[in-house]
């Protein structure tokens, strides 16, 4: 029998989370637009708790993983740019599309309206991503993209290259 602590989670081998590794919002909450925090390890870190204007993210202590209250979360995206691990995304379902807000730290930045590659957690192209909004207030740009609704929980990155 394997001792506890010696078992290795799959994401510790691959660096890729599966959707079962973190809390999922309901369909209704997704329509409103909520934060998806992909931070599953106990890291001493808490800027997301401090920046949330509605106290939707909480921790018992600094080593705790962030817990999201999807009912309180307004999907305002202010935590997306502050997370040092670039692990926070905001997902909003609108009709047949999903609006995904993600942190982006590469140059050049994409132009609003352009259509680029939507990448999943393994960096594979999953379809087109239309750039809806580019917020460059901080040095980490916060970009909102529009992808097919079915990709809401898979797409987490873009490749700034025209999608044909």
């Amino acid at each position, binding site marked *: 029998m394997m001792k506890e602590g010696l078992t*290795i989670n799959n*994401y*510790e*081998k*691959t*660096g*890729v*989370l599966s959707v079962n590794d973190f809390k999922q919002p309901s369909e209704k909450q997704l329509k409103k637009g909520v934060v998806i925090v*992909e*931070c*599953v*390890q*106990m*890291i*001493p*870190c*808490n*800027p997301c708790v*401090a*920046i949330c204007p509605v106290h939707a993210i909480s921790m018992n*202590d*600094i*080593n705790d993983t962030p817990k999201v209250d999807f009912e309180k979360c307004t999907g305002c995206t202010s935590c997306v740019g*502050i*997370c*040092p*691990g*670039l*692990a926070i995304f905001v997902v909003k379902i609108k009709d047949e599309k999903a609006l995904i807000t993600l942190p982006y*730290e*590469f140059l050049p930045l994409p132009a609003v309206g352009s259509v680029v590659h939507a*990448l*999943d*957690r*393994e*960096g*594979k192209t999953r379809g087109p991503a239309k750039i809806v909004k580019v917020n460059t207030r901080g*040095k*980490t740009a916060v970009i909102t993209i529009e992808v097919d609704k079915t990709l809401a929980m898979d797409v*987490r*990155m873009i490749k700034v290259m025209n999608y044909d």
Partner: protein
Amino acid sequence: MTAFEGESIAAALHANEVKVLSHSLRYDRPRGFFCGIGKCSSCFMTVNHIPNIRTCIVPVQQQMTVTEQQKLGKLLPTPFTPKKKENITREIVVVGAGPAGMYAALAAAEQGASVLLIDENNEPGGQLVKQTHKFFGSTEEKAGTRGIDIAKELLNTIKNKKTIELLTSTTVVGYYENEHMHRVIAVKRLINGDQLLEISCKKMIVACGAMENMLAFPGNDLPGVYGAGGVQTLMNVYGVKPGDRALMIGAGNVGLIVSYQLLQAGVTVDRVVEAMPRIGGYHVHAAKLRRCGVPIVTSSTIKETFGKNHVEGAVVTKVDECFQPIPGTEETIQCDTICLAVGLTPSIRILEQAKVRSEFIPEAGGMVALHTPLLETTKNGIYVAGDASGIEEASTAMIEGELAGVSAAMSLGHNKNASEVQQKCKNALHVFRSGPFGRIPKICKEKISSCLEYDEGGTHY
């Protein structure tokens, strides 16, 4: 050859495609840029007829003559400097102006002590100056702020403190004991000849960081094999791309972060290999890389690298549970850059000269000076902080620095709110070391305490 003002000689040469900086003494093998912070000696060259200059920390100047030296190099018959030794006396001397040293100097000055802060680099800030990523931690400890911005902020505060004098381009080379004072000898590098300094102080805080580990494999000395931190220096401090295609060895936080920064600089990262069966760094750093399409391969390592005068490729292999290569799993990859992110070793040479008691503690990263919870070593009045006291990370280095600084000042009778600050630091360190990622530093500090207790004839194992 052209260069930018403020660039180090080695970085300027690299930007001009000169990647072989020296040759090994016995087998005449080419050697290149490795650590980038004046620790490893592979960048020794003859500069303006003076041999053995660490070109990675000396800034370029107009009309400078830089030549590869023949073996050990020849000293000029004339003295380097006609200048007389200069004497300096301060209450507290801090060696190293990285996160720990800067915080130590500030904390001591806040309590009212006069401080001399020394760093061998041209620019203070230690490794903070190349940390372009946002820091983790609590909002009070500057989480969410990039290391490079923390360095700027700290430097400004230090420059505004009249009781802190900052000496850069100055290397502490020797420690001498005196009856009531500590005496250190340092050399300040100046354009018109170096200046020898004799510094007397009542308390000394050693915060000189750590150096990157080498890994044994055929070809590991070829130019193109860098310490991951060395690559960070090239890219993030000097804006010089190390190459076009990189292989990263080690998936701890340093390996993961530097791989991401290589991507930001426009370098392709072929993959990250990690000998352990799991990724050692934070998952969030690994996730950032994976979604950019960079593979991270665990239970895998480098077998060898090859190339004529420079890295042209490498062979990677899977390893078993005992870290032995599994035959038949070798894969040859094309790359011009290999980064080693396989751990750090505390820099304790100046402490060894001072004959403080040190022990080999694996969790510390090697030999480390024993110290009390207030960071005082076994020699009265000598403190240690940051990576030099055991490998950890920048946030805890800042807290340790503050704790050492305030404790040193307090022992000299400077006390504004010293006990309060001490308690705040101790609490913060406890919190940082309570989570699963703080386990190793916690064990390290516990072992250090046990060794000290054993020395004092207290609790035995």
